[in-house]
Structures are given as structure tokens and as C-alpha cells.
């Protein structure tokens, strides 16, 4: 397994843990401040992390292909 793929798995697992905690917290925290946190903080973080993970996955795939093709 390439090191980049391992990094991809690392960040996606870390993200799943944070997201799990966010969902658990959301169950307990249901006021306007929660909505504000979600709108002003969480959504930006989520979008940034998901875009990053997608770009890392693409890069890992390309480099893996390159390593098999370059002698």
C-alpha cells in the first residue's frame, strides 16, 4: 500500500471520528447556537476536509499508476 493511500485512510478515519462526535453532540445541542456553529464553522470545515480527501485520493491513485508505469 502506498504511503499516500495510507495518508488518505488516516485523514478519512480521523474525519469519520470527528464527524461521529459532531453527530453525537448535535443530538444534545439543539439550540440556535448549534445552528450557528453548523452554518459558520462546521459546514466550512466539512467541505474543506471532503474536498481535500478527494484531491488526495486522486493524487494517490495517479502516483500509484505512475509507479507501475515508470521504470
Amino acid at each position, binding site marked *: 500500500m502506498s504511503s499516500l493511500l495510507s*495518508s488518505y485512510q488516516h485523514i478519512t478515519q480521523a474525519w469519520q471520528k470527528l464527524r461521529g462526535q459532531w453527530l453525537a453532540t448535535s443530538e444534545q445541542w439543539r439550540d440556535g447556537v448549534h445552528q450557528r456553529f453548523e452554518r459558520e464553522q462546521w459546514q466550512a470545515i466539512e467541505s474543506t476536509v471532503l474536498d*481535500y480527501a478527494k484531491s488526495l485520493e486522486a493524487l494517490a491513485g495517479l502516483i500509484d499508476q505512475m509507479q507501475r508505469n515508470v521504470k
Partner: protein
Amino acid sequence: MSSEIKVEEKSLRALESALGRFQREAQETLTAVQHEVSRTQSWLRERHDYWQREREQARRALDQARREVQRAEAALSACLAWRDDEGRGRSCWSEEAALRAAQLELRQAENRLSAAEAELQNVQRWMARVEQAVGEYATYADRLSDAVQSGLPQAQSFVRFRLSDLELYLQMEGGAKDLSEARLFGLFAHRAEREAVEKAFPGRVKTEVWVTEAEGKRGRIDLLLPDSILDYKFSDLETKRPAALRRALREVVSQLERYRGSPDTPQGAALAVHFGFRPSSDAIRQYVEDYLSQHSISVMWGE
């Protein structure tokens, strides 16, 4: 009510910790990927240099093989032309074999050169593709890095602020045993001001705005208008000794100037501070107003 708040508090503390953990893990990932990308690019450059050297060697071998073929052809021609005194020729078997061997070497050298050129072109194509992919990745890595540096700490601060609100509720319900009166009052007053402003000017002002200050630190502005920054202060200036009052005012100036210098606030924003306690002494009020006006900070007094 208190038990519900305690559950929320526990859950928020877990979220705050999870945000901190993710921040560290995201930074680890960014560092590891950067290292791996550098290593990959370095390996590609090494392969590029290798195939360039192979191509040069193959070219030299091809030149040498061509010369060998020419020499073998000349030797065969000389052999075929040779005649003894009686006009008889001789066997040219070894010259013909040498020519065939030289021609075989030539074909092998041509093949080796084409293989080296193909590999070199292949490496160059991959270098370009990897370069482009790394460029695209870097855009998202920069965004994640910004989130690690500011978005995640800001989210943590938001959660901490919410926790301080809960702390306030719990302390109020429990008689404020462990919270100093000043802190309790500060928390309550900030919250009351925020709610009053949000109610009076819905959507027209921003409250509790987190901004980046110098050196990447974060600061929270109490009230941000399109052209001005307002901060609330609830300490009782009247009870402060002169040296403590000067220190407090220096801190107000420093804090507001940091906000004004932030790239997140309107350029040239006017600065104002609202003191919740109006000192009864004209002299103190005048001193505060004079001190802050030297720094172009307006003063408003509570009643």
C-alpha cells in the same frame, strides 16, 4: 434543566477534544503527504536523469556500431576485391560473418536507443502529469492547512465560548460558588448585550465575530458593523487604581488596534468601546475619553 445542560456540556467538551485531535491528525497528514510528494518528485527526477544518461550511452553505442558496420563493409569489399597474382580471389567468410555481427550490433544499438528515448518520454509525460496533479492537490492542501491554522481553532473557541455560557447557567443555578463575581458578570453582560443587539438589529450587525490578528492569533469582536468595530467592557473603572486604569486602557487600545489591523475587518474601520459601568467621577470619564481619543477610539458609557 441542569441535568440537560450537564449532558450538553459533556458532549461539547467531547466535541472540543475531537476538534483538537482532528486538527493534529490533519496536520500530520499534510506533513506526511508533503514529504511523500517531495520523495516521489525526487524519484521521478532521478528516473529522468537515468534515462537521459541511458539515451546518451545508447547514442554513443549506436555511433560506434555504425562505425563498426562501415569498417566491416570496407573489410568485406577489400576482401572481395582482393586477387592474387593469378587473378584468383579468396574466401571472405570471416569478413561476411564480421559484417553480419556488426549489423546485428547496430540493430541492437538502435533498439536500445529507441527504448531509452521511449522511457525518457514516458518519464517526462509522467512528470508533467504528476506536476499538474500536485498543483491541483496543493490548492486543497492549502485550504486544509488554513482550516488547521484557523478554522479548527476558531471552531474550538466557538465551542469553548458555548461552554462558558453553560458554565454561567450552571453557576447561576448552583449559586455561583466557584465563579468569581466579576467573571460571572462579564459572561452574563456579554451574553445579554449580544442577545439585545441581535434582537434589535436582526441581520444588520455581526456579533462575536472571530478574526485573525497578527501572527495568526484569533480574536473575537463583540460587535462588527460595516464600518466600525465595537467592544464591550464591563469592568468597573472607578474602582481601579491609576496604574491599573492605565494598564486596562492600554489593553483596550491594543486589543482594538489588533482588530482593526486584521485582514478580516473593514479597512479603516472606526473603533469604539462601550463601558457598561459609567464612572460617577467626571475626572475619570474625561481621562478615559482623552486617553482613548488619542488612539481614535470613541467611548460610550452605560447608564
